[in-house]
């Protein structure tokens, strides 16, 4: 008796949305990475000045009267962890065809994204840094402003994904996976910004 050979299963086509999002995330990472590289370069080349107590020479980079609000920046970093968890929850729920939880997860993702925008603006207001004196101010606003724009793009992505699920397109698992990937990438980028700009300063 001959045993019929098993036929190959259908080839799963890679999702265009997922791949394109991966490329977009790579591009955004290159953008932030290059800006941080220039930040580090400028900081390394900053001239020396005497410290406030006159005891040693330090880089004339961050002015003595400028305080970086660490609570706000640390809160943003922690919030990114939350937003990634919510985005992954949306993927988890969609795979189980749980529409209500998918909508809830995406809504929370978008809301937390907006909270990140709010935190960044609050951080600007707390610092009260004017954009007219030195290289630090230019680079600070350019880097954090670009990161802010990327966060806004993430919020828009969440809202689009939410709209699609709300409209009944629950089968778009790849879109939700791509959405989560984008937020993971944004989280990674902010981790670098947080460490270089807010921790190392």
């Amino acid at each position, binding site marked *: 008796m001959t045993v019929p050979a098993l036929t190959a299963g259908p*080839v799963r*086509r*890679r*999702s*265009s949305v997922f*791949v*394109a999002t991966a*490329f*977009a995330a*790579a*591009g*955004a990472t*290159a*953008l*932030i990475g*290059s*800006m941080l*590289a*220039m930040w580090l370069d*400028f900081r390394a080349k900053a001239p020396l000045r005497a410290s406030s107590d006159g005891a040693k020479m330090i880089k004339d980079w961050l002015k003595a009267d400028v305080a970086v609000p660490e609570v706000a920046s640390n809160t943003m970093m922690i919030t990114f962890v939350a937003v990634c968890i919510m985005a992954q929850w949306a993927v988890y729920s969609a795979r189980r065809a749980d529409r209500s939880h998918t909508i809830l997860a995406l809504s929370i993702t978008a809301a937390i994204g907006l909270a990140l925008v709010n935190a960044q603006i609050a951080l600007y207001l707390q610092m009260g840094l004017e*954009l*007219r*004196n*030195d*290289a630090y*101010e*230019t*680079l600070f*606003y*350019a880097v954090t*402003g*670009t990161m802010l724009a990327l966060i806004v793009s993430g919020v828009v992505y969440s809202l689009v994904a939410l709209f699609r699920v709300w409209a009944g397109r629950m089968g778009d698992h790849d879109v939700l996976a791509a959405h989560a990937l984008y937020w993971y990438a944004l989280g990674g980028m902010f981790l670098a910004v947080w460490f270089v700009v807010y921790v190392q300063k």
Partner: protein
Amino acid sequence: MSVADASSLSRPVADEPSAVTRLAAWFTVADHARLGRLYLGFTGVWLLLAAVLGALLGAERMDAGAALVDTGAHVQLFGLYHYALVLGVLAPLFLGVALLVVPSLLKAATVSFVRLASFGFWMWAAGGALVVASIIANGGPGGGTADAVELYLLGLGIAIVGILCTAVSLAATVMTRRNGATLDSVSVFVFAVLVSTVGLVLTMPVALGTVIYLWVDFANARVAFGGTGLMASWLAWLFDQPQSLLFAAPALGVLGHLGAVAARTRQPLRGGVLVGIGLCAVAVVASVTQRSHPFTVGDTPGETLGSFVPFALFHLLPLLAPLIVIALALLALKAGSPRLVAPFVPAFLGVGMILTGLVGTAVQMIDTTDLQGTVFTEAALVYVVYGSVLGAFGAVAYWSTAIWRRVLPTGAVLGVSLLGFVAVVLAALPHYVAGFLNQPAATATGHDDAGLRGILNGVSALGHLAMVLAVLGAVAVIVGARSRGTETTTNPYDTAEVAQ
């Protein structure tokens, strides 16, 4: 007459779409072929502008004292010339060709995210228009009107985003619409498009980041980046080698593809061709350091080695890409039964010109040649850009049946190709020589214009004018074939032996 007929007669006949509707259709174009033709059309206009600017600046340099144009505008004109060569011609050139032929090579209906590609095209076109407007309004690098300088940066940023969007669309197409084919079995042109577009996705954001920095600094403090005077130097890597090789990589793919077609055999070392094209990706590192890496002989072997390693990485390794592809195209011809395939000629000559440009860049980076800062640098870029144009013409001529359903006449293709080749050599080679005579780059005054230098600049101007003629000739060949040629979808160059 039936009732249905009566009702149809009583209804107004559908009119021709209005001008507004037709205009809107162009702005919302979601057809990859139409989009590709738009890219090529606009690139052609930029190529004409670049060639005319090259001729104008060459004529201006014939006499270091006379001024065909205001001396104060020289910096801006050179800025526009470089923009036209790289972001006006080189970057979008193969995006257009790829939009036209990649779907058919992959047996896909269209490209992924065709509206994203369309958005990218209009962003690029609008960015270019803003750049030209800003230069006219005394903006751009070295410009004196603050608003116009900001407009230039805005245009530059928008154009970069546009190129990025189309690159993402094409890269996603190759990654997801291969219909079961593996990456090593697709056409080498498709593989080259993937290498190029992924490289663009990784490097263009770096340029965008620099533009953002320049804009924030210029609009506010103007203390970190040196204002308009140093603007060009911050983005110099974008308009130089090896970054330009990323844009030109698909030209190598065209030659890799046509080498096998002309030889009527499978490429014996197909993997080698893919490796050669993949080496173009080395150019990505240009965006990492954003500075030149000259080779200097140091006082100790360690110093010399420390200078040689980055020099070799940035300027010698990229040389291998066109070298390998040319060598393997010749190997295929030797192994097969060669025949005259007209599109092979511009593709071969084009990659040869790209190689000449890369060799020139490597030579000028050797410190002892004292060529940096001379017109030698400009000539190397002209070789790469015009060489890529030749390569693109080869692609368009070869895939003309897929693009326009017409075969371009062999004689006309060869004629335009040879005219283009002569134009490249005339436009660039004199400045290679003038570089050794220490003629400075990016200026048309203040140099010694006596004797040979004046002649060389004149010949270079003639070369650019010859390129104008070659472009017009190519357009005439295409228009002529479309109006008079017989409609066909059969590519006369394809044979059963060649399975790409």
